[in-house]
């Protein structure tokens, strides 16, 4: 066990996977000599060389396109997109190619690319260094979408991703890259996809969240606990595949749900969660589902802290569901 931050755990996960398997390689902008703008690939260039830790030209479609070609050929490429806000030039490669290769070829061409990218607010990045576009990818059949919230999960889920036979978008909550640290087991460690984590148990209301919103939810849960309300915090970990069973089990227990994410509300990932509850937990729900999310505006700079869901808003929503039914 070693005490690591999230970004250190990711770095560790990358290094260990590369040591274990010569087919694993990393490519992206500034991932080599510079070690990545967040230092997630620090040291890898030195250890594994420029052929396995590839500094690419400034083209996301080139990065993902090349990674796809490598994966088709049998390597296990890990592509870094510097900020997920800059993934859109590669959207065609991701949606039209990466997600559909296995299917369109009748299973002949699996395409196990991992795309890692920091996402979300909290670093005063304004419109273009703060976005949470997970819903786009979760809606794209054929992609897995993974978002860790702890150092141990960051390493373990990344390891699973690297060995998964399918394409994985691995979104890293940059806001808590360094803010959160914790014990991470040494050596290879995997967490299976599709298994949510109960970050806190509680019987009165379920908070459904992921990534950087987990610490915020835990904080809200503390506040609620002070007034006798026990909130359960479910960390989804993988949005695709989704642990629907865990979501339903928790809400069936508590009868109340508050969904939390940073992305704008309209058609956000929370909509799918609410829809699942409206379909499958309808008779267990005691009150309307609540969503605490970013607003339906682009992500603002100066007002970032007012835009992002905070503990107060979550507490407010939890109280509203408790009062409602």
């Amino acid at each position, binding site marked *: 066990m070693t005490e690591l931050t999230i970004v250190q755990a990711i770095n560790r996960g990358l290094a260990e996977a590369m040591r274990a398997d010569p087919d694993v390689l990393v490519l992206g902008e500034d991932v080599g000599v510079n070690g990545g703008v967040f230092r997630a690939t620090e040291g890898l260039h030195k250890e594994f060389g420029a052929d396995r830790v590839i500094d690419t030209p400034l083209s996301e479609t080139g990065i993902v396109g090349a990674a796809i070609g490598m994966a088709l050929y049998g390597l296990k490429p890990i592509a870094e997109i510097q900020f997920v806000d800059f993934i859109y030039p590669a959207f065609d490669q991701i949606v*039209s190619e990466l997600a559909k290769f296995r299917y369109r070829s009748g299973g002949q061409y699996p395409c196990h690319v991992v795309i890692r990218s920091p996402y979300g607010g909290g670093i005063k990045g304004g419109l273009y260094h703060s976005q949470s576009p997970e819903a786009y990818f979760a809606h794209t059949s054929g992609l897995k979408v993974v978002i860790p919230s702890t150092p141990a999960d960051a390493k373990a889920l990344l390891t699973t991703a690297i060995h998964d036979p399918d394409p994985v978008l691995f979104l890293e909550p940059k806001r808590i890259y360094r803010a959160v640290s914790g014990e991470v087991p040494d050596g290879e460690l995997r967490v299976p996809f599709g298994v949510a984590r109960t970050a806190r148990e509680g019987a009165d209301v379920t908070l459904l969240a992921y990534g950087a919103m987990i610490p915020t939810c835990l904080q809200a849960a503390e506040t609620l606990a002070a007034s006798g309300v026990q909130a359960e915090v479910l960390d989804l970990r993988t949005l695709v595949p989704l642990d629907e069973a865990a979501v339903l089990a928790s809400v069936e227990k508590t009868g109340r749900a508050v969904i939390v994410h940073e992305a704008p509300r309209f058609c956000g990932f929370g909509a799918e969660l609410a829809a699942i509850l409206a379909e499958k937990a309808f008779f267990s729900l005691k009150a309307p589902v609540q969503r605490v999310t970013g607003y339906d505006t682009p992500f603002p700079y100066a007002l970032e802290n007012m835009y992002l869901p905070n503990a107060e808003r979550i507490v407010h929503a939890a109280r509203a569901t408790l009062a409602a039914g």
Partner: protein
Amino acid sequence: MAEASEVAQPGGSDGPADLPKAELPKLYRAMVLARVVDERCLTLQRQGRIGFYVPLQGQEAAQVGSAWALDPEDWIFPAYRELAVALVRGVPVKLLLDQFIGNSGDVLKGRQMPNHYGYREFRFVTASSPVGTQISQAVGAAMAARWKGEEIVTVTYFGDGTTSSNDFHAGLNFAGVFKAPTIFFCQNNQWAISLPRERQTHSETLAIKATAYGFPGVVVDGTDVHAVFAAVRAARARALAGEGPTLIEAQVYRLGPHSTSDDPRRYRTDAELAKWKEKDPIARLKHELLTASVWTEEEDATLWETTRKEVVAAFESAEATPPVDPLTMFDDVFAERPAGLELQRASFAELLKDGGLKP
């Protein structure tokens, strides 16, 4: 060549840049086979027996000449018009026709429109519709092959219009920077649906675009199998010598419509078509073979006849192949079906049983 509907593989990579005379009839056979499949499919589409078709007439020499210059181990990243390349690779006609129908014989399980095939076995990567995406993929695969120490090249096929795509730019740039062993084979058939080459880009040639990426670009007459073969051979040697990629512009003409959904009379003249018909690559090679006395008119008549019969037979066999199993719709989204998809499949299976779904 035992059967006209299967093409003998070319000889390998270590031959000379000149096509041996004795091999020419083989190339010709491949071109004729492509033409016959093409003509047949246009008819079948009109008859409603296949849903759609993308013809290649006029591009046979470019395709056969380039494919002939490759090693069977080389990887091909095609677009949707590379029928003759697939044939040279050895893909049986029946297998292609299964794909056009989308039946249970289709390796792709009926998932894609006609012409969007691919066969891992033949190192012919499954095509998609969005133009250009295969280009940067081919570069990545070439980098991977080199990393694995395999002495192969990747070749990607695309059209004149596709030089405007995002991945043309990204792919060629990556290839230049990483000296990827990739051949960019552009079939400039003068049209991107209704847009003529001159309004696609203002560059003098398409080949000259390689300058922007620091490697050679060459123009070849794409109706001349020799020129095409030599250019690809040279590019392949260059790539394997670690000198990097080459862009080849093969100048050809799309004699037919863009696809069976297209009516070229809306945008181009009969005169232009007539001019290019004179350069029909099949007529050209036939003339050469006859002149060189390695081929007779009699052999030619027989070839066309037997080829037509074999293609008809192959289609009949494809048409008799059972439809694809509806439940396969839920396979291959992922390696394993996640719980949510499993539920969808179960409810689909139930509807299917109840007769609530029609093909």
